[in-house]
């Protein structure tokens, strides 16, 4: 992994040392297994220490890490028979949002999510996972189709935000997101969302109104980017790390505020270094949760979904 975060460096160094020692032992036919084991214990301890003491800003950087599994990685790793469906039937297809049909333990479901690129070229094509209105309208089309055919909906959230540009405004970015909020609040099938990386404001919520919402343990979810908050608060975009802490945007913070239902633990070392295990952990939660939701009568499901959002917020009176 070429993209190393500063707090990961001691871990990487130690791992390289172990690797070097192993190589040395092998080349020279020596038994250094005791030393290797000692160092391995040390690196485990270091990983535990590092990843239990992550700051909000560390989480932001992990959530944005280019090596993290993307929506398509989760879809392909968790579901069977995936077939992608494209287009909003009004303007175009938005590659920043992907979706389609698949099965989960034999049950047909609709899956969709923000899609970041896995390299620079793909990122450019996918607009770095920032959808235009047509992306949200494609999502809406797929969700309404799911409702028609009685399929549960699973969404994956991973966006810095809905795109802010001329075309996005002209084609009604606000309207597109608003339409999804009202539709998802009343969608007559179970809806599950997982924040797998960045949960950027309205652009995230636009596919995130669900019966159950989980966040990966180093994912973030916020009303504005830390850079944006920092430039508004302190007229200084470089204080983003302080802004991240102030805003309470980590999975633990968001859970404490009653906005999500679960945290899916990433393996120590982070999702970007343990893609398969992360996908597996998410899959396990989705399967269990979907089972619970499918057992509920529709009326109860909708009542509970309404009550959940009805109860969000803190105020006096």
């Amino acid at each position, binding site marked *: 992994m070429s993209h190393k975060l500063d707090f990961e460096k001691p871990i990487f160094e130690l791992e390289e040392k172990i690797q070097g020692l192993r190589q040395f032992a092998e080349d020279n036919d020596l038994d250094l297994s005791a030393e290797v084991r000692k160092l391995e214990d040390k690196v485990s301890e270091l990983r535990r220490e590092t990843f239990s003491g992550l700051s909000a800003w560390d989480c932001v950087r992990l959530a944005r890490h280019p090596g993290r599994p993307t929506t398509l990685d989760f879809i392909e790793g968790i579901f069977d028979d995936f077939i992608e469906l494209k287009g909003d039937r009004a303007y175009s297809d938005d590659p920043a949002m992907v979706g389609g049909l698949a099965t989960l333990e034999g049950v047909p479901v609709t899956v969709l999510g923000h899609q970041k690129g896995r390299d620079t070229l793909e990122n450019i094509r996918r607009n770095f996972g920032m959808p235009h209105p047509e992306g949200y309208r494609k999502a809406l089309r797929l969700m309404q189709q799911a409702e028609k055919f009685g399929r549960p909906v699973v969404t994956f959230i991973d966006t810095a935000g*809905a*795109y*802010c*540009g*001329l075309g*996005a*405004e*002209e*084609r*009604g*970015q*606000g*309207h597109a*997101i*608003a*339409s999804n*909020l*009202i*539709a998802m*609040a*009343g969608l007559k099938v179970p809806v599950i969302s997982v924040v797998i990386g960045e949960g950027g*404001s*309205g652009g995230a*919520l*636009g596919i995130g*109104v669900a019966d159950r919402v989980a966040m990966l343990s180093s994912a973030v*979810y*916020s*009303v*504005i980017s830390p850079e*944006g*908050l920092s430039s*508004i*608060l302190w007229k200084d975009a470089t204080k983003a790390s302080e802004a991240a802490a*102030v*805003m*309470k*945007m980590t999975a633990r*913070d*968001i859970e404490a*505020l009653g*906005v999500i239902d679960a945290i899916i633990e990433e393996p120590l070392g982070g999702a970007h270094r343990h893609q398969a295990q992360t996908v597996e952990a998410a899959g396990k939660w989705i399967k269990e949760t979907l089972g619970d939701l499918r057992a509920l009568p529709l009326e109860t499901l909708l009542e509970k*979904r*309404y009550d959940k*959002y*009805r109860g*969000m*917020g*803190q*105020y*006096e*009176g």
Partner: protein
Amino acid sequence: MKLDFLKRKKWVRLELSSQDVREAAAIREAAGLSQSLSTPAITTPAVTSTVHSEGLSHNIKTARSITAAPKDPGSDEAACPDCGAIHSKQRWERSFKVCDQCGKHGRISSPERVAQLMDQGTFSPIAKEVTSVDPLAFPGYQEKLDKAMLKSEAGDAVLSGTGLIDGIPAALFIMEPDFMMGSLGSAAGERITRLVETAIENRLPVIGFCASGGARMQEGILSLMQMAKTSAALGRLSAEGLPYIAVLTDPTTGGVTASYAMLGDVILAEPGALIGFAGQRVIEQTIRQSLPEGFQRAEFLVEKGFVDRIVHRVEMKAVLAKLLRLHGFAPALAEATSAAASTTVNVKGGEAHVS
């Protein structure tokens, strides 16, 4: 909550003086309005119950002018915030803070808006006791709240309540641009949600005046969730077959645009209002070019298909009343009050018992 506002007291329906009508016509003409009240689309009788100017100035005596700064405190004159034309303060208030030179709609407070829209003395606030707290212990937020509370009569970024519009019972929420830029926080979201639920219970139409800088960042994720919460409530209203009319005023941006501002069955806007999802500075930074003239203005949104109609402030009440009538809502009995403990009014879908 079941409402008893219909029996509260005798409604006073006031007539516009001929001078008011002349002034309103002058303002419309100056603003180059083609859709005037005299066109068949909006018939004149609706005007007869527009707020009486005396009642207006009485009702808003505590509200401050936000954008039209007087030349100096104590001066009798106010300058148009856009073209700088000087108006007598009295005339500025009587023209609903619309400049008769350039047509600029000055910003007005929620109590002023109530006075312009609701039949005099009929507005009854809902959830006014709901106020903001500081859930994240966000630096400086409590101080900002305290300051805003002192400045604004609404007590938060939304004023909710019920009342009569040309005699027609309606639920109304008005965003308060003077309260932390009309930002949507938990209290504002709760005030809107309670209003919508009251409307469902009493089978009332909902009218929402939007004016907001977006979600209130000081409440973090909780403010974002107000978008989902208010949308869910409006979803229930919609499922009940009750109409929601959104009126977008300057400025309507961010999370409010991405939720209830854009969910109206009918969406109206005031002339020249800035309406958009992203802020103009953010867009310019993203695309690294300056924005075309008129971008994100109300007229632009009509052209792009996101707003039904631009409505001049002077005509707003008449247009709203007409829309309510077109949705099957009729005036409550004007003398409803002196009647006994329970009154029957005609509302959509038959008769409702209001007691």
